[in-house]
């Protein structure tokens, strides 16, 4: 089956075998290994990507479901200047330890900040509730997301 979709800003046409998870398509066939697998069951959020701007678990989706849609992975987020504040804030605050959860966290944060420019701590928590991190205790992650939001707000002034 041939499908057409948008991936990190570019249109792609691909032949899909019957059953293939989106995460496998991204990681194994397209070498976009920034998207991580932690549980394969929708529990950890390490595999989060944007589907038409909304965060989804790529381990729970079939590749065929993305026909006609737009997917953005961490590689796409990292290359997009609009999100530079988030990456910088994660780096500066120490929100990254082992970093395995970071791509998923950042993708979820990007989705949040795209729809809510001034999230409260509680809104940040709710947006990232599906992303597990075993290293950081989350404090610095909350700090990073609110710092990124502040910077975006300042820039718009």
């Amino acid at each position, binding site marked *: 089956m041939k499908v057409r979709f948008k991936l990190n800003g570019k249109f792609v046409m691909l032949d899909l075998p019957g059953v293939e998870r989106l995460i496998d398509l991204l*990681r*194994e066939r397209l*070498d*976009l*290994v*920034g*998207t*991580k*697998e*932690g*549980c*394969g*069951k929708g*529990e*950890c959020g*390490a595999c989060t990507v944007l589907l038409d701007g909304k965060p989804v678990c790529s381990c729970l989706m079939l590749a065929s479901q993305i026909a006609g849609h737009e997917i953005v*992975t*961490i*590689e796409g987020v*990292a290359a997009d200047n609009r999100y530079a504040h988030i*990456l910088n804030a*994660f*780096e*500066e*605050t*120490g929100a*990254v*330890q*082992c*970093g*395995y*959860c*970071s*791509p998923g966290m*950042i993708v979820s944060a990007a989705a949040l900040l795209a729809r809510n420019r001034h999230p409260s701590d509680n809104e*940040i*928590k*709710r947006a*990232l*509730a599906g*992303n*597990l*991190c*075993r*290293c*950081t*205790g*989350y*404090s*610095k*992650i*909350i700090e990073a997301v609110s710092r990124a939001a502040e910077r975006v707000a300042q820039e718009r002034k």
Partner: protein
Amino acid sequence: MAKENPQGNKFNVIGKASPRVDAIDKVTGRARYGADHSRTGQLYGAVLNSPYPHAIIKSINTERARALDGIRAVLTHADIPGAKSFGGIVPHQMVLCSGKVRYVGDAVAIVAAETPELADKAIELIEVEYSPCPVVSDPEQALSPSSPLVHEDGNLCAHHKVRKGDIETGFKNSDFVIEHEYTTQKVEHAYIEPEAVLAEPGENGGVTITGSVQNLYSIRRAVASVLNLPLNRVRVIQATLGGSFGGKDEAMSAICCRAALLALTTGRPVKMVNTREQSMRESYKRHPYKMRYKVGVSNDGILQAMEIKIIADAGAYAATSQFVTWRSVVQATGPYVVPHVKTDIYAAYTNNCYTGAMRGFGSPQICFAVESLMDELAAQLGLDPFEMRLRNTLKDGSITATGQKLTHRVTLDEALRNVTSAGGFKAKWLANREQDSASPIKKGIGISCSYRGVSLGAEGADAAGVGISLQTDGSAVVTCGLVDMGQGAATTISLVVAEELGLSSDKIVFLNADTTVMPDSGPTVASRTSFMAGNAARVGSTILKDRIAPVAADMLKCKASALVFCHDFISAGSSRITLAQLAAECFRRGISLSAHGWYKSPKTTWREEDGTGDAYFTFVYGANLAEVEVDIHTGRVIVTKFISCHDVGKVLNINGAKGQVYGGVAMGMGYALLEAYAEEDGQPKLGNFDEYLLPTICDMPQTEVIFLEGDDPLGPYGAKALGEPANEIAAPAIANAVANATGRRVRELPLTLERVLLGKNLIPGRERGSAMAKGAES
């Protein structure tokens, strides 16, 4: 006291808020973890685990699997050319089982196939005939003479003891004696990255392994002996690690040996990646402990005697049980002066998932017991928990339970004072005992404290190396035999080199560990990295500096002693040159720009017969405070505030240090309230994060971090250790807070709804969660 930002910092980079050297790679998704490495033409490996926790293997038939198209190898124990088993302390863990399986994570056969799906299919076609044996699942029963044997030479895996004074005299001197049993559960490291390795046949007839490994050198030894290869033909490279917490140590030898076997058999690269379920099933856990404490106290609240008996479940294999239980026996009395001590700890083999190193390494269990006990004693004496502790804590010059005199500055009381005054402990603690009975929400506050031996102590050879190579453009490559598993070692080591050579830290590239580059630096465990590698980095930098300084002196026409290395410049008075100029000049003159620093830890002593000696060369101290709200209608506990104070000697990187504390508290909260790896008759009752619950971002309380800088003369710039202390006393602080709120003591972890509400856990049905769903399907 240095609160958050240490003052009077005389350093250029040390102690500042430096970003991690690897952060950019990680936030952009560029960093390559184990499973992110692939090679063209690679095969996929898969494992057949035992369905039984204890059984004799009668026959293995791989014919149907072999006949499948796209299968390149199907191997069993008979195909192993060298040693059949591995293990640093007891080499009895089978790479592929023959004869007998001892837990459900044991492997019987492996396959390599063109696709992961084919590999799984081949696994299903392997036929194994077992004859099940009686399952040993209770460690206490395992030690009774009538128990079936897990290993031929008996079920006793380890026994350590400590004897101090005379226990009978101690109880005679006591005005009253209390006796309680505390138990802690088995927990999983739950690093978010499951284990993954890639093995490639090497050009020299050897093998190269790239993967999520924490202890490269012990893995290399295991692979070499299993494959019958000399050490120099086995190369182990650490991929960026997605968390470890002690969980990807030597036991990674199993998956590495299997992948290497398949690669050498097929002549092709072989990738093996665990699913979460496999990781849970196979990987070792933190030891569950059953701890009986009998304690004598005089009326003035002074501890007189402690008699302690602990039983640990080692599971099917020894792994690091001997060392884990050794740390427990040394620290079992907690950070208190006790004149008469008798401690015995036993680890027993069972058919449960085996247990080994996990952040804390034998301390979270005993911290829970001792710190609960101190509150119970306080209640009996009518003292508040803070006062009770102060009367007994270790002070400067105190003698520990093993007879070691503390010669460094003991900052335990300071740590306790910090958390209690910052948290307003005493007033709240008293007020919480008289709460309005109408409201179902009860507030509680609790404290805990600990001391912890730094690095390996008398348990093993303790040395580490750091390599530094200055480039002619003034940049540098740094590498170390200890690994960065997320805790920030790469950053810490880079900062030390930057400080010593006057480099800016962004001029340093830190290479992940590789056995062909660095000599054996032992395991990355015991919070030893800052201390050991930090010191080694200092030694290496000094060697290099001493070598290039005369050239700089020559160029600047001054004495070497007048030189200042700072911000990528070397200056003497008003004249200066760049580090790049100096490096280029050294290169021109044929002076080596690379140096290797080696650091061996100070001496420790131990007498196993009576458990006495200077067990560790130095200790760290810490105290925690937790505030909770307990809903007495449901048993639900919410942690509302947390304060964590640790003496780290010297903060090397404030960002990294705070991160270690926040992460440690989160893991301690999981231990206190949520996590339990449940097994029944050796069968796991859960397999993924839908049932094994980890704290999420919504569970985290507001956390305050206070650092004490006790300045240990032995550490690099006075630095000691933090990774494990930050984790070990979180759970008891929470348990004490819950007891303060409800007026009832729970002596078992985790504090589930039922335990808080009813004082006991309800026995779950045999089938729950995914197991039940599966039952319903069929």
